[in-house]
């Protein structure tokens, strides 16, 4: 057993947040730990507290040694910072497009956190099954001599040079290690995800202009994805359009009689590959 010098995630008594780096596996893990520690639902209040601790934690990182880890946190840290700003803004005045964007970013982060947690739970099922099954004994015995002897004679055509070439191919690393650049360029935007936003905005409410539906969105990719999502929704007769004049305001009205999650699940499948 390797001694674990710092197995605890925090020292509740001192109130100082500390974390053993070997004990978690990335920013989401850390966030979940923090949220769990607060024993709070993921609410704005919890979040602002968590954000503080998270930033405190980042400050405490040994820059030289923990650079790798720290870099992984930047995305989450940036998002959390944004959210903290949003939290500091006066409530009830969410007219500013930027505020809306911040709220969306928060929702996205929450969604991703919850998704992450779901997979963590699924991983536990995998662990249990793999353990149980590893204790089972399948029949896996050497082939009886007489059957082994009866296998057709090996047809060998490879010369020694070809064999060496084959070795070279097999020994050449197939995947060149790469540095993750996902945070540097625009991530892929899911039409389905954007459709979910649209459905949430439109369903059971007033007609909205397209301008309104993309208010606060700064990324071109998301605007495009929302438009495509609208077309998909139209195809499913979930929305109707009204445009008085060419290039005029496009008004979108929710028109689906019955709509369920399954419709959404199948939506935009054409774009999946």
């Amino acid at each position: 057993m390797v001694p674990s010098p710092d197995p605890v995630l925090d020292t509740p008594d001192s109130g100082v947040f500390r974390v053993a780096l070997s004990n978690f596996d990335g920013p989401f893990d850390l966030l979940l730990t923090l949220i769990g520690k607060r024993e709070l639902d993921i609410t704005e209040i919890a979040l602002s507290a968590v954000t503080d601790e998270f930033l405190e934690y980042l400050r405490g990182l040994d820059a030289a040694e923990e650079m790798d880890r720290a870099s992984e946190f930047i995305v989450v840290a940036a998002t959390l910072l944004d959210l903290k700003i949003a939290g500091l803004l006066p409530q009830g005045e969410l007219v500013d497009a930027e505020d809306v964007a911040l709220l969306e970013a928060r929702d996205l982060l929450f969604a991703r956190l919850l998704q992450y947690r779901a997979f963590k739970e699924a991983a536990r099922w995998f662990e249990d099954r793999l353990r149980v099954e590893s204790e089972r004994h399948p029949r896996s015995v050497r082939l009886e001599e007489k059957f082994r002897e009866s296998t057709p004679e090996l047809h060998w055509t490879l010369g020694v040079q070809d064999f060496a070439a084959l070795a070279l191919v097999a020994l050449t690393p197939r995947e060149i290690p790469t540095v993750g650049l996902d945070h540097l360029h625009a991530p892929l935007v899911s039409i389905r995800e954007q459709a979910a936003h649209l459905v949430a905005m439109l369903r059971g409410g007033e007609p909205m202009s397209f301008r309104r539906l993309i208010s606060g969105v700064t990324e071109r990719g998301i605007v495009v994805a929302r438009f495509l999502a609208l077309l998909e929704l139209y195809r499913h007769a979930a929305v109707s359009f009204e445009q008085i004049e060419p290039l005029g305001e496009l008004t979108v009205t929710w028109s689906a009689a019955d709509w369920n999650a399954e419709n959404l699940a199948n939506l935009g499948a054409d774009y999946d590959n």
Partner: protein
Amino acid sequence: MTTETPIDITDRPAADGADEADAPLAPHAAADLPLERALEALLIVADEPQPLTDLAAAVGAPLREVSAAIANLVADFDGLTGGVRRGFELREVGGGWRIYVRTDYDEVVTDYVHTQNPARLSPAALETLAVIAYKQPITRGAVAAIRAVNVDSVVRTLAGRGLITEVFTDSETGAIHYGTTDLLLTQLGINSLDELPPISPLLPDGADGFDSDLRPA
């Protein structure tokens, strides 16, 4: 564990038949052998799960007949056809049929064979495996996005274990898409991905939004 468990054979279906299990089976055309017996002979030499189609090809019988014969064998080994409940059983895992020691006897066998279990997977590897299992085919980048960490070395480990494999490479982006293997199913003791527990209940808002492509509950 109870005391001795003699099997009550008073209600044997074929009262007088000494070899009743064979009785309903016409000798098989191709091999002129009882189908169930030929199948159990094949399963005795097999060292991995045998797909029904392979077995059918080997005995030269229609899939439907082979399927029924396998069902009979399962019941036979389970002691449901008038015989004893065997120390081994026939299980469908990883897309095929394979003989296993019955769980009751796992302990005796474990003590005897000291098989070496492979090293356990790290939590990071298990989570990555779960993401790939539910979202396949999926690129490393997409897994990394969900897990918010680089997963390259973990993916390599999983591939080396044969639990995942490259399914295809996107011709445009060159991104390799990964999926799970039959070996994973075997090691989970399940026969198909449908037997994975539904994940939607674990997710917020069920199938809403981003996870809509996950296996439905």
